């Protein structure tokens, strides 16, 4: 096992298929916390449902990951060998400086917050039903108070918003603009 914070260079040879995006996000959280190197990917086309998400893994670690999912009660469909490359989740993050505020954009999602207080002032982008819900739950709370998209979201839009949230936290904690 080796840790790779964003998993961008990791290439696995196996894939875990989940019932839904929420399961995949929970699975990623569990395996990353346990130190596995993984990345979120698009499942094979015949298994896609539109907002589906899968986890690319080292197939040799299948048993340990399956056990971990059972311990953490992460439901999944099956683990398959990956015979050809899967699409990679868009990891490009852009930050726009609006003076008193930053807008962080990850893929199709944007999160804006006040630099001094960390107050989330707007969430925009995306088209899945959890995004207006996440907006209602996150806006007008600080980055430390707000629930995280991966804890209450369900879809790939929430996955991208989580990326934006993590970058916002990094900036608020003094990280530099990359």
């Amino acid at each position, binding site marked *: 096992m080796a840790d790779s914070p964003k998993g961008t260079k990791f290439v696995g040879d196996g894939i875990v298929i989940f019932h839904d995006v*929420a399961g995949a996000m929970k699975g990623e959280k569990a395996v990353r916390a346990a130190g596995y190197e993984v990345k979120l990917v*698009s499942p094979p*086309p015949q298994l*896609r*449902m*539109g*907002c589906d998400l899968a986890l690319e893994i080292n197939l040799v670690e299948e048993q340990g990951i399956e056990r971990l999912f059972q311990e953490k009660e992460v439901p999944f469909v099956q683990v398959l060998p990956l015979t050809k490359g899967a*699409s*990679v*989740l*868009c*990891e*490009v993050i*852009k930050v*726009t400086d*609006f003076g*008193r*505020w930053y*807008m962080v954009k990850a*893929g*199709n999602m*944007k999160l*804006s917050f*006040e630099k001094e207080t960390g107050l989330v*002032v*707007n*969430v*925009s*982008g*995306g*088209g*899945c*039903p*959890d*995004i*207006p*819900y996440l*907006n*209602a739950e996150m*806006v007008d709370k600080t980055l430390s108070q707000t629930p995280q998209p991966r804890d*209450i*979201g*369900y*879809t*790939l*839009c*929430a*996955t*991208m918003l989580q990326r934006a949230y993590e970058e916002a936290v990094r900036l608020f904690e003094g990280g530099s603009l990359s």
Partner: protein
Amino acid sequence: MMILFGTLPYNDFPLTFGQVSREGDYLKADGREFSRTQGTGAMISAALAIATHFKEEPPYVLVAGDIGGGNGTRDIYQYLTERVGELAPDFIAMHYSLPIMALMRKFIEAVQRCEKRPFLIADAGAMYAAKGAGLSGEFDIFTPDPSEMAFLADPQATHPAYIAKHLFECDASLVPQQIAEAFRSGSAAKLLLVKGKTDYVAQGGEILHAVNEPDVPHLEPIGGTGDTITGLVSGLVYAGLAPKDAAVFACRTNRTAGKLAEPNPATKVKEIIDQFPRVAKEYYCSWSGVCYMDDK
């Protein structure tokens, strides 16, 4: 009849179908109140403002609560698929919903059996489902933002978060090229209204209009300002404008309302929505040359 279709960000809001009205800071249909901001609520608010300006019949809404699990999405698709022939709407705008391609296929099959085909607009999850199911050509208007435009330009993509690596940058200068590619690959509706720093209106693979003014950069962070464009173009088509003219008017209306609201990144979309009646009243006459007289 115009039907505005989409999910609402509540866990337990039941399926609701009825004519919509504004009640203070809320929208109301069939006795139930819901938020007029964000997502489907913002889209409905914009369409209602335009319908009110032109003294059209208030739109019908078909909504249900869904926070991402897909329950409300299934309910509204099932309702409309079963009744679209009987309701015979002239116009349907489809918005936030879980992109479930099988539901979209069944809905379009039902539309194809209708005696009179409704005018169809899609944005958000409904647009993802239509594109993913290979049914873009069944729609009259899509209203993507630049990242969704990159998704439409990628023939393999089923969600904007997964696009070919060369499209990752979402470079705004590539939008015209992506518009051409989406039309070439059959992933575009008959008309595309691409909302961004520059708004593009394209038909048949050709960009007809690029709208840059007024330039209000602070609109981008405000959640719901893309949703309002979808509502505006819906209301304007329903009021009788040609789709390409409605698209240009929608862009100019949103931008002008943004300018009047003097926004910053913390502004909420309802402050923009509240400017739409003023924009329609003060600007539509000069933009169109066709002036509307209020009843005395």
